[in-house]
């Protein structure tokens, strides 16, 4: 309870940083959505728009000691953990200047210097990774916390459930963030997730499991701050289920014949950026002019990232056999 008692309201700087990150993710994804349609971007992209409050609300409580593992829908997690937006865009365009020198693409953006273990094309691939980093943090006594983001589809993977078991057995400083956006590709989670609430599964492992409105930055931030403080203090892992909707299809090009008006409703009524802006201006914590200034800066930064990416060189044949193995 000590951490709860000492909880303080977010500072102006923290609020501005959170808004900037959420806006950056939104702008980044809306732009990739448009650019992908031109055919210039190779491979597949899975967009995170709509889910910004989850990545930013969780990662806003993390620091340099902490690591995260992401999913195929990873751009938001990367940005929230501080990966360079220009390098990310270049990676998506497959350019030498990208986070992985253009050889990974959208689903493999990683930056170990930022504690970002990587987006992951393997559904349920992230949770085992964070058991490793969380065990390392625990044994070394760094105070670091590890966070795995995964979707409702990933929640059904054996790797995810085994990792939850392991994290509980080892009492690891770990968070399992189930981003339940309602569909695994086109399969409704209400059909595919037995027990329906992913959070319910936590009880079987003996860890706390809670549900949070994933559209509400403040709800996510508060819940994550409690779970992270608990993990840092040796209290063990927590499962947090975010309930929300993704604004775009499973991948770009998905016709989305499996859903009706929910995106329209979410954009109009539930949107995390709109709600954040309304709240902080009502309380006077930030002014509309502050938010407008961030919007303009972010738009310019994304323009720059796209221009730079398009102008950057592609990998050459000589690059084919570099970065294949890592020497530790």
């Amino acid at each position, binding site marked *: 309870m000590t951490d*709860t008692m000492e909880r303080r309201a977010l500072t102006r700087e923290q609020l501005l940083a959170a808004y900037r990150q959420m806006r950056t993710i939104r702008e980044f994804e809306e732009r990739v959505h448009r650019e992908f349609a031109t055919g210039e971007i190779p491979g597949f992209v899975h967009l995170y728009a709509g889910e910004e409050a989850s990545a930013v609300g969780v990662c806003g409580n993390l620091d340099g000691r902490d690591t995260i593992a992401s999913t195929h829908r990873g751009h938001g997690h990367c940005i929230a953990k501080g990966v360079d937006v220009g390098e990310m865009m270049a990676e998506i365009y497959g350019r030498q200047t990208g986070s992985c020198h253009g050889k990974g693409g959208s689903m493999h953006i990683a930056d170990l210097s930022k504690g970002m273990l990587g987006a992951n094309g393997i559904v349920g691939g992230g949770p085992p990774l964070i058991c490793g980093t969380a065990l390392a943090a625990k044994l070394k006594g760094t105070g670091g916390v590890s966070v795995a983001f995964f979707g409702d589809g990933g929640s059904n993977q054996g790797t995810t459930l085994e990792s939850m078991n392991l994290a509980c057995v080892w009492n690891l400083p770990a968070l399992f963030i189930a981003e339940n956006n309602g569909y695994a590709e086109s399969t409704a989670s209400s059909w595919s997730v037995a*027990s329906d*609430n992913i959070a319910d599964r936590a009880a079987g492992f003996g860890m706390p*499991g*809670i*549900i949070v409105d994933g559209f*509400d930055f403040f*709800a996510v931030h508060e819940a994550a701050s*409690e779970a992270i403080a608990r993990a840092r203090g040796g209290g063990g892992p927590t499962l947090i289920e975010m309930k929300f909707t993704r604004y775009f299809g499973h991948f770009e090009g998905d016709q989305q014949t499996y859903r009706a008006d929910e995106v329209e409703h979410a954009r109009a009524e539930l949107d995390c950026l709109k709600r954040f802006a309304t709240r902080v201006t009502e309380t006077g914590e930030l002014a509309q002019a502050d938010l407008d200034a961030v919007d303009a800066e972010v738009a310019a930064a994304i323009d720059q990232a796209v221009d730079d990416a398009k102008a950057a060189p592609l990998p050459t044949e000589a690059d084919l056999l570099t970065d294949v193995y890592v020497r530790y």
Partner: protein
Amino acid sequence: MGDAIAGIVANPLSGRDIRRLVTQASVFPTAEKANMIQRMLTAFAAVGVHRVLLSTDLGGISAAVFRAAGRRRAQAGPGPDTGWPEVEFLDGRPIRQTAEDTVDAVRRMVTAGARVIVCLGGDGTARVAASAAGDVALLPLSTGTNNVFPVVREATIAGLAAGLVATGAVPAGVAVTRAKLLEARVGDRAETALVDVAVSTERHVAARAVWDPATVTQVFCAFAEPDAVGLSSILGQLSPVARGDPHGVTARIAADAPEQVLAPIAPGLVVPVGVRDVEQMRPGAAYPVDARAGVIAVDGERELTFEPGEHPTVRLRTDGPRCVDVPAVLAASARLGLLRHQLRRVGST
């Protein structure tokens, strides 16, 4: 018997909030909520309820009952005798996974002529259901966290009691009592609470639950029982007020107040709370909120934000929901011999 119709509304999200993380509050799995409804349906059938309206949800509760109903039909073969009343699933509207869903389901039950509505959830769910139930009798059954208002009861027994009210076998005058209500108002925004209203200095609704007494500056209670859990427990040990009393009670909360009480303000959380200015609440009078800005929590959940200049007020009202008194119903049933059963002899006419 006319239309013996009952409604059941179940909140798939009750018992899932941050209190499981910060105070080790109990977990109520979806499967158990669905099981409770099934036990209740058996009880409804036993006392002659012939039609039940059930809320639908994306949490898997109505789906589990739907599957069970299908299995019973398959096992029973042709004919209507599945041992359950006819169950109508209230689908066909978008499910938003918010309190709107509960309001919508309860309204549809009222319109369809339900005589009793059983509500599965915590204090928050009961509060939302009560706001839409009008004069239809409510039986709030606990599956939430902070259960002061809903009763913790075996669902079969709750089903028997609700069924006896739905059929009219036990007269409403015996079985149903009207609860009090608190109304918190900020300008033209208002929220109701069935147990307590608390003023918090937090700025945002965020994770909703209130578990840090250092943020609370005022509490208002429709009733404050000595054995309650939740914010009303603060006054439950200092100045108890019964559910049937005509008044409520309010106080200011301050860490350095001379009067200190150990209060179970949430499951798993017994903390010292400083209390001053304890005062009876008269029905109808508007009591001002002292804080300049903050959040008003209703039945333990932050709900209404207010900013400087908005001057919120809290009123005690006596026109709360009509609630089924389970022990009173079953005592009346015993007096009237309603559950006495005649053994049918083979060959008798």
